[in-house]
């Protein structure tokens, strides 16, 4: 199963902010600071702000280590009424989906209200690996 059904198509994701960076782990602090700023501006409580930072870090780390070298990580934020939706993607050389039994993925599921991953084919041997997650204020998700 190299394809999963996305919760929402990328097209239907109405983006409030997008950050694009070379898919390298040393860029993680930048994505975390964007996520924290957005969560603070939404008046999320302190624990939830930390959860959003943790979730975006986990999501982007997971993608960066699977990214085609030199490719760009995109991370989009959509915010409304106490709910943050995040959609991130990288180009990938592999057709393996993400292992959903790893510790990292379990943490991601615990932190969020929903999390989904899928691979999309973008022409011959071009693939894009996606993660989408939803986090509402003051909820521990499945945790």
């Amino acid at each position, binding site marked *: 199963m190299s394809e999963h059904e996305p919760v929402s198509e990328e097209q239907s994701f109405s983006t409030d902010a997008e950050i694009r960076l070379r898919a390298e*782990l*040393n860029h*993680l*602090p930048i994505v*975390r600071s964007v996520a924290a700023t957005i969560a603070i501006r939404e008046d999320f409580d*302190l*624990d939830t702000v*930390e*959860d959003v*930072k*943790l979730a975006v*870090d*986990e999501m982007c*780390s997971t993608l*960066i*280590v699977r990214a085609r070298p030199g490719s760009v990580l995109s991370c989009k934020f959509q915010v409304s009424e106490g709910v943050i939706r995040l959609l991130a993607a990288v180009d990938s050389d592999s057709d393996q989906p993400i292992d959903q039994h790893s*510790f*990292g993925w379990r*943490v991601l599921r*615990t*932190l969020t209200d929903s999390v989904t991953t899928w691979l999309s084919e973008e022409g011959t041997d071009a693939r894009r690996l996606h993660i989408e997650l939803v986090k509402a204020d003051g909820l*521990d998700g499945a*945790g």
Partner: protein
Amino acid sequence: MAEAGGQPPQQGAASEYAVAAGADLAVRAEQLGPNLVALQVEGELDMLTSPTLADRVREHFAADGGALVVDMTRVSFLGSAGLAVLAEAAGLAAAHATELRVIATTTAVLRPLEVTGLDERVHTCDSMATAIGQLMR
């Protein structure tokens, strides 16, 4: 990006034997007693930086260094890679029949420990004094 990092090591009463610094993480070891070492961790523990701490933890137990206190007071981010290091440290301490204490005082550290339930496997303390008190008994 940047090369240097961390604060210059503070001169404390305890002997210092090493400083490891990345752009975003500094780990400083202090020998607190014959069988008691503290690792002062400063910075962010993510997938890039956590291997630095993992190395220091493994070195400590490989050398039969005794009980270990990991002071996370000045850690501003603790992701799953950093949590995995703490889980591994707990396992290594048990395997060496010695003790591990993790000093955790901030939301940035307490929250990930709580959310993952790792606080049930790793013994946390709210101060160095408490940790030392428990380990020197």
